[in-house]
């Protein structure tokens, strides 16, 4: 896959926009998935994923062909998502209602207990409960958990994407797992 990508990048550098279309086709699902699991909103995720590819296209001459293209691309995607999370924090993170919980929002959960209330568990689909657990993580834990358990990447690759020391990535994964455990243990 990397070999095809390297060839397409050369064509893009020569001004061939259609070659970029093939790169988008190869990576769109993975990039969209990162954005959706980070942002938990289809519209936001689509915006962020599109922005990722546009940014990659505009900055393609800064990509170092000696390194893995996916790492570079996922770095753009996670950075854009983290930016969006930080900008949105006051209303989005605490007031967003979870589908089907009728008036129960992130704020009441954070305030009352770290665990998801039982009645909410009954109302939610399993997938939504897990997604809400991920979404409730602070963004620094959320990004490592998404990259490790949803994109199934190696710890070293996650460290390269986030430009963090390997030790920091490990610590964040440990803490992220503990936070998820508290949230999901009664499932």
């Amino acid at each position, binding site marked *: 896959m990397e070999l095809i990508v390297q060839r397409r990048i050369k064509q893009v550098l*020569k001004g061939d*926009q259609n070659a970029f279309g093939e790169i988008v086709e190869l990576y769109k699902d993975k990039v969209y998935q990162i954005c959706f699991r980070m942002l938990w909103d289809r519209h936001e995720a689509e915006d962020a*994923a599109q922005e990722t590819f546009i940014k990659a296209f505009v900055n393609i001459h800064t990509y170092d062909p000696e390194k893995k293209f996916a790492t570079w691309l996922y770095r753009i995607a996670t950075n854009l998502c983290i930016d969006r999370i930080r900008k949105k924090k006051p209303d989005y993170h605490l007031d967003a209602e979870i589908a089907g919980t009728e008036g129960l929002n992130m704020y009441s959960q954070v305030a009352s207990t770290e665990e998801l209330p039982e009645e909410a568990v009954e109302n939610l689909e399993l997938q939504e409960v897990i997604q809400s657990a991920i979404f409730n993580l602070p963004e620094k834990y959320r990004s490592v958990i998404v990259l490790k358990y949803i994109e199934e990447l190696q710890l070293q690759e996650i460290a390269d994407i986030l430009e963090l020391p390997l030790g920091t990535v490990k610590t964040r994964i440990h803490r992220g797992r503990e936070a998820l455990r508290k949230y999901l243990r009664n499932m």
Partner: protein
Amino acid sequence: MCEIMASCQKEIVRLMHNYLDGELFSGEQQKLKAHLQTCNDCRQHFLELKKTIALVQSMSHIGAPERFTEEVLFALPKETRVIGIQRWIRRHPFFTAASLFLALMTGGLLSTWQQEANHFAFTKYNNLQVENDTVVVPAGEQVKGDIVVENGDIRVEGEVQGDVTVINGEQYMASAGRVTGEIEEIDEAFGWIWFKLKKAVTGVFD
């Protein structure tokens, strides 16, 4: 949680996480295993961690929405030809230098460029104002047509119904300023030649 003491619990939890990352030495693995066999709290904790991971991994993979690629391609910035050429130059520096030299020597373009290099000039319109080497489109004024400024700057406070091209200068847009066409800044000799060639070629086809 752990019956023994808090520090034991902390150490065991660390081993659990290292185990989950596949990074336990065999000695540590023995230690974890032995502890889990005797301590209910830690065993419970470990099972919860494993269940949590299984739950997160059970999430179904979702794909990008339909027409995603088309929409990305549609949203890409349309390349200006100057940028295309600059990119090409970066990739073929020697060939560019050689052919540019030949073109300059044979076409006499270089001397024209040197002559014009410091000469402030712009497309004349009645409602344009000039402050030093800056052409100003005043607020509330409308310029109907393209504006070219050579060796000077332009500040748009009103409206330009056409393209703005600045050669060896910069363009500034006031917040209320508006340009309906394209804005282009050309700074290098090569860009300048390209611009002249483009004018010559369009002239031929007009």
